[in-house]
């Protein structure tokens, strides 16, 4: 025993030491991350963010330097506060308050003392700065907007938050990241790559030299400039036309899929989201839950497409061979398809419409017949519906389309499964889904989807994926994605009669009041019923005004969809706006001054006030009274043929009230 005691103690000690060492060096990795090594400091060099130009090379977004006065409270030496305060244009109380705040945050770490000095203030301060130990100036780069339009697709930049930090290890706290629009979509292109220098420090935080002779250091890579497909003039004009209205406009170049204008109204000046006021302004925009200026209606608002959808049903009918150009249906001031089911129409009773007339008069009964024939061509409704759905989806409806912007909604295309769930298998028929004939009911589209549908018709059967990127400086974008033609299931020959009908809409149909001298337009009006909920009760509002158009008919240069919320007749607002924008784009200037004046001066604010007023209100220019909950004889509309569908789109013949012209 006495011979072994010391030896055993030595062995036990060695084992304990090895255990402790393996804990410290092998198991506990908290000290092994070089970025958390107190002896190494990473210093970043941020490249300038790329500029953004429009399709003609007009500068939309540039950068401006901004200078923050920083303070490290511990390092501050006694100073001439009076002079310092004068230079910074702050009072001595401010100085004391700010200093105390910084000191409370941390005596060792830098805090912003006075943010965002202008260049002039900075110049004055710069030469005296060395007198004030503990204070220094940090340069930051902020966005400088050369335009006041396009806030919705440009997006903005702001500091990264916790989620960004977790998701992407590239970012460090306090850095800037693109949000929304192209700033988000092309973040990596615009941002470039920050450079980093690792610096070896001693325990007094003094720099000893580069860490490992700088082998891990990287140089910053400049952000690249990008060119958008947007036409700034058209965008600006469209935004002006949409003032005091709500809605979305998307204009495409059909033979390339380039987005010429992407308008969401109401909108805001992108400069609001820059600099000292950013957060306050953002909060104000964010909490405007009525006008929703941050809600990009061109991409994410899902509206019933209304009558423009009839063109698609016409195409499907022609492709399926259930109609031809000369197929004629009689309209009985509507269409009766069951004991209690009637779809109203504005045609005179007994009017005999062929396809052309069906389109330009926008006859509900005509398309109810077409739709029934399509579905009923097949032994059962499920199969017919599946065929129909397949055609509709080939137009990009019901999908995100794959454009290069971070926002989107797929819209809705009903499938046989949907109705199976509603009614049970084999327990429904074409008539149950008849609203689909006229773009009401289960169909929902976003403006960009409808614009794409119009571009397909303009192209006679195919589309390119809509995109907003035209060019990246010194770089080729992945062209293949935007250079691939997507063909629909409809053969090219079937487009001509439909286009002819759309051209007649403009020449003698529902949009004949819109005349743009020298330009042949093909269009289609739409007037879509819509509802809101007031105290959980479904209440109908004034119809949405919708118009799709492309021009010139023979060689289309622009295809667009216009939605004006609660604007009533398709031709009243949306049609005029589309006409004016087409004129602006094709001619460069607008001659239709009276029409322009009507749109610019017109306002729908009164209409938007109605459902919020809490009082009974009239919709569709007083033709109907709506009673919010708690008021008199309002009865929610129920009891028509189907649970899901509330058809009855009216599109009166030549009813554009003359008084407003």
């Amino acid at each position, binding site marked *: *025993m*006495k*011979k072994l*005691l*010391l*030896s055993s*103690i*030595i*062995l036990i*000690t*060695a084992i*304990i*030491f*090895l255990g*402790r*060492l*393996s804990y*410290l*060096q*092998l198991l*506990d*990795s*908290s*000290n*092994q991350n*070089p970025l958390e*090594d*107190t*002896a*190494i400091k990473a210093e970043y060099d941020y490249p300038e963010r790329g500029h953004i130009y429009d399709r003609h090379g007009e500068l939309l977004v540039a950068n401006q330097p901004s200078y923050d006065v920083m303070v490290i409270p511990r390092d501050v030496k006694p100073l001439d506060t009076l002079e310092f305060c004068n230079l910074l244009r702050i009072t001595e109380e401010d100085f004391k308050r700010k200093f105390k705040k910084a000191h409370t945050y941390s005596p060792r770490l830098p805090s912003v003392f006075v943010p965002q000095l202008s260049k002039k203030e900075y110049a004055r301060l710069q030469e005296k700065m060395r007198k004030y130990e503990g204070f220094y100036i940090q340069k930051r780069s902020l966005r400088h907007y050369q335009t006041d339009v396009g806030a919705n697709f440009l997006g903005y930049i702001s500091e990264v938050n916790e989620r960004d930090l977790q998701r992407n290890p590239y970012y460090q706290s306090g850095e800037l990241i693109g949000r929304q629009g192209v700033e988000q979509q092309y973040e990596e292109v615009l941002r470039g790559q920050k450079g980093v220098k690792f610096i*070896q*420090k*001693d*325990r007094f935080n003094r720099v*000893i*030299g580069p*860490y*490992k002779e700088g082998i891990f250091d990287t140089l910053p890579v400049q952000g690249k400039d990008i060119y958008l497909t947007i036409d700034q003039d058209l965008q600006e004009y469209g935004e002006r036309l949409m003032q005091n209205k709500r809605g979305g406009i998307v204009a495409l170049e059909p033979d390339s899929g380039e987005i010429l204008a992407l308008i969401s109204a109401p909108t805001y000046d992108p400069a609001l989201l820059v600099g000292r006021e950013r957060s306050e302004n953002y909060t104000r925009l964010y909490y405007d839950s009525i006008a929703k200026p941050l809600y990009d209606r061109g991409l994410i608002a899902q509206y019933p497409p209304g009558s423009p959808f009839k063109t698609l049903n016409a195409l499907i009918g022609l492709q399926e061979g259930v109609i031809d150009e000369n197929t004629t249906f009689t309209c009985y001031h509507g269409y009766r398809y069951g004991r209690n089911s009637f779809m109203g129409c504005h045609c005179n009773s007994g009017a005999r419409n062929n396809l052309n007339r069906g389109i330009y008069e926008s006859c509900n009964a005509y398309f109810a017949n077409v739709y029934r024939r399509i579905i009923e061509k097949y032994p059962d409704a499920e199969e017919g519906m599946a065929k129909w759905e397949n055609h509709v989806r080939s137009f990009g409806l019901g999908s995100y389309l794959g454009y290069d912007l971070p926002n989107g909604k797929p819209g809705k295309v009903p499938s046989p499964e949907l109705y199976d769930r509603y009614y049970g298998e084999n327990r429904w028929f074409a008539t149950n889904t008849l609203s689909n004939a006229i773009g009401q009911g289960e169909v929902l589209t976003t403006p960009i989807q409808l614009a794409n549908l119009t571009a397909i018709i303009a192209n006679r059967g195919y589309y390119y994926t809509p995109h907003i990127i035209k060019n990246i400086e010194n770089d080729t974008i992945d062209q293949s994605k935007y250079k691939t033609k997507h063909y629909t299931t409809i053969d090219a020959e079937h487009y001509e009669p439909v286009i002819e009908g759309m051209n007649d809409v403009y020449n003698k149909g529902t949009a004949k009041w819109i005349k743009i001298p020298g330009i042949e337009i093909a269009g289609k009006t739409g007037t879509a019923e819509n509802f809101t909920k007031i105290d959980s009760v479904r209440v109908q509002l004034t119809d949405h005004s919708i118009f799709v158009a492309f021009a010139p008919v023979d060689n289309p240069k622009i295809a667009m969809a216009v939605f004006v919320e609660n604007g009533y007749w398709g031709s009243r607002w949306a049609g005029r706006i589309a006409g004016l924008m087409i004129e602006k784009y094709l001619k460069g200037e607008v001659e239709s001054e009276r029409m322009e004046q009507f749109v610019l001066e017109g306002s729908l604010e009164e209409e938007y006030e109605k459902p919020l007023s809490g009082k009974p209100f009239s919709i569709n220019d007083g033709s109907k009274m709506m009673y919010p909950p708690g008021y008199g004889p309002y009865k929610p509309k129920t009891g028509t043929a189907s649970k899901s569908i509330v058809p009855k789109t009216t599109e009166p013949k030549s009813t554009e009230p003359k008084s407003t012209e």
Partner: protein
Amino acid sequence: MSRKLDWISIIIYLILVAMGWINIYSATYSGDGGSIFDLDTLYGKQMLFIGVSLALAVILVSIEAKFYERFAGVIYLMSILSLLGLFVFGKNVNGATSWYAIGGMTLQPSEFAKAATALALAKYLSDIQTNITDTKDLLKAIGIMILPALLIIPQPDPGSALVYASLFFVLHREGVSPLYLYLGFFGVVLFALTLIYGPVWIILGMSTLLGFLYYFMNRKKKRLKLITLVTIVVVTGLMSFSVDFIFENIFEQRHRDRFSLWLRLEDDPTKLEEIRKTIGYNTYQSEAAIGSGGLHGKGFLEGTRTKGDFVPEQHTDYIFSTVGEEWGFIGSAAVVMLFSLLILRLIYLAERQKTSFSRMYGYGVASILFFHFAINIGMVIGLLPTIGIPLPFFSYGGSGLLGFTLLLFIFLKLDANRINEWL
């Protein structure tokens, strides 16, 4: 003669000295790589010390082995005198008067006193007239051990003084009852437990424990006197209270903080953080440096914390943290194993000695080296409170290296001579 030297020990010694120098080079390297013999640098000086130590080693093994036994008393006396002389001629460095200044060099006599004391103790105990079971002789032996410690404490250098306690292993090997060892161990445990739980709980705990013991022993008809047990409880209680009293009233705050950190006494996280940054700063930084080494370490001269001088006293007492950071687990485990191997080898050599003097001296060498190794590395890896003693052969310092070389090579000479003992 050299054939009889124990080359295993010598090789381990040389490896440790070389590793020590490499790590001192790294810990004190300033980036402008001068000559490794540049005497303006600490690593250059250490290179000189290594040269002198090797020369000393050669001289030590050349001297007649009987010299050490014969002159043990004289050597001891001289080293006691040199310690006494510090009170008059000592030079104060960093608050401790432990050095003589000779020319540009300083000399620390306490480093040599270890070997002298080990020699003297061995000499006294191996004397035929000494009977270790006799209390008077035992007290004399303990006196030889304690005298240099008493002279070193007021320098102040409590760490070096504590080393002499390790010589108790020699006494134990020679037949002194292990009771003292157990008592010492019990004392340390009692001290720690008192600080953690307070004296009241200690007394309650002891009473319960002994109560059970009394009950079971009586059932087995092994009569334990109640009075003995009560005495144990009372003595324990008194000791516990005195520990408490000494800790609260005699210790200074910095000492209290050291123990607070060691025993994790502080619950308040903000206070604990404060202790970490002040008194626990060394331990915290050294643990962080070692931990950052990982399995392979960062490589020679690549230790970021070593370069940044984050660990204080890194070239002396905390040299092991450089090993941990730059050579990783592989390097630090190798050092631990080399030390253990060397000490075990020395015990093996001691056991094969034919004279009790050589055996006892060998035990003394092993005990002293072990104590340094255990306390130093225990402190650097955060298992023991901060006690400032160097790591043998590793830490920077001429006196230390020469002192340990002296200690080791006298024994290696004695071992080499064991065949000729009768001459």
